[in-house]
């Protein structure tokens, strides 16, 4: 109880500092710390799946992405600023009151889909409820989410401009040696998370994020990593969505409906989709972060 209170105060203070400070580097570093604290909150709210994803994405990849872009952006930006007036503050207060009322009223009418999920869990092919929801009960949502990721990646590719500042130089080979040691371990952890996903927290998203972090690490150490011109890589980027929809169509022919699997084969199909989706998510996230990094053009002219 006291712990919750301290954690909440800490988070609110960090969020305030993050939006209030005038130093952008400080804002980013506070944002990364905020991601770590929020991962703690998710574990406290009994959502370890989400905590895994937040620890990998919010506390890891987001920091690298923001910093890589901060160096390329000019100091002053043409952000539209509003002058603070009593009108703005009163609107803000009214919105706060309305949201507070909504939060209070939603608390008094508890609704849960959990009984429904648990009733159908045995026929989903996995034993972990969150994975069952993601890849069986609401599989179409997850497939479309992968498509959104792909779309954002394509849009970002077309927007990007090629003037980069180089990495800060380093002396000695400590970074390279350590990354060479860490890389197999990181890939092993990604596979482990994927494997755990069917019975306990873990799964394609978390595994993909950890894979992306592994490739990011290789890039930061300037070791030979992925070659973005390779055809197999492009297939890998598209693979998640494609396999997802093919398996979905297969369900249509077998009479289980689009995106439905027969109950006895569900486990195998889910494992296949999850492995390809994890690879795809990892590649997409890695390339989204790497596009904004120095030296990216060297390998993809």
């Amino acid at each position, binding site marked *: 109880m006291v*712990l919750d209170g301290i954690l909440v105060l800490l988070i609110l203070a960090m969020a305030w500092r993050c939006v209030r400070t005038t130093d952008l*580097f400080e804002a980013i*570093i*506070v944002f990364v710390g905020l991601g*770590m*604290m929020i991962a703690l909150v998710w574990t406290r709210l009994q959502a370890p799946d989400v905590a*895994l994803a937040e620890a990998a994405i919010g506390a890891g990849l987001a920091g690298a992405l923001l*910093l890589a872009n901060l160096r390329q952006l000019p100091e002053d930006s043409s952000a539209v600023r509003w002058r603070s007036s009593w009108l703005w503050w009163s609107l803000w207060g009214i919105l706060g009151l309305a949201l507070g009322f909504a939060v209070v009223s939603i608390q008094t009418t508890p609704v849960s889909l959990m009984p429904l999920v648990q009733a159908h869990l045995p026929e989903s092919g996995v034993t972990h409820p969150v994975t069952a929801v993601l890849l069986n009960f609401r599989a179409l949502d997850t497939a479309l989410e992968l498509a959104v990721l792909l779309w954002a990646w394509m849009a970002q590719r077309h927007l990007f401009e090629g003037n980069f500042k180089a990495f800060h130089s380093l002396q000695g080979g400590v970074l390279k040696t350590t990354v060479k040691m860490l890389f197999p371990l990181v890939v092993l952890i990604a596979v482990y998370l994927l494997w755990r996903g069917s019975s306990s927290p873990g799964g394609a998203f978390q595994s993909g994020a950890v894979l992306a972090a592994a490739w990011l690490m290789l890039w930061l150490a300037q070791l030979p990593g992925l070659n973005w011109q390779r055809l197999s890589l492009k297939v890998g980027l598209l693979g998640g969505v494609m396999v997802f929809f093919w398996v979905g169509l297969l369900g249509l022919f077998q009479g289980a409906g689009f995106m439905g699997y027969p109950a006895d084969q569900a486990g195998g199909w889910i494992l296949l989709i999850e492995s390809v989706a994890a690879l795809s998510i990892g590649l997409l996230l890695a390339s989204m972060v790497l596009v904004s990094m120095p030296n990216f053009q060297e390998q993809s002219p």
Partner: protein
Amino acid sequence: MMLFYQVMMGVLLLCIVLGLVQLVWGHNSADRLMAVQLLGTIGVAILLLAAQAYEAPSLRDVALVLALLAAVTGVAFVRLRPDKEDRKP
């Protein structure tokens, strides 16, 4: 035993508050980077204690990923820090 773990977690959270003070009033980017590194390590320790106290083994996986990604963040911050350092004599 539960009480002991909770007290330890509370003390560690207070350490995070101290780290946050350093994060906000640090003198240069290296200080802030150290503070965020400390935050990550304390977060790992809290997660491990919580996994033991609440018998929730999946929290150890979260700790594993957090420890790993703290390293990636640290490397990224050193290699991509802003060019102009706030050079205070």
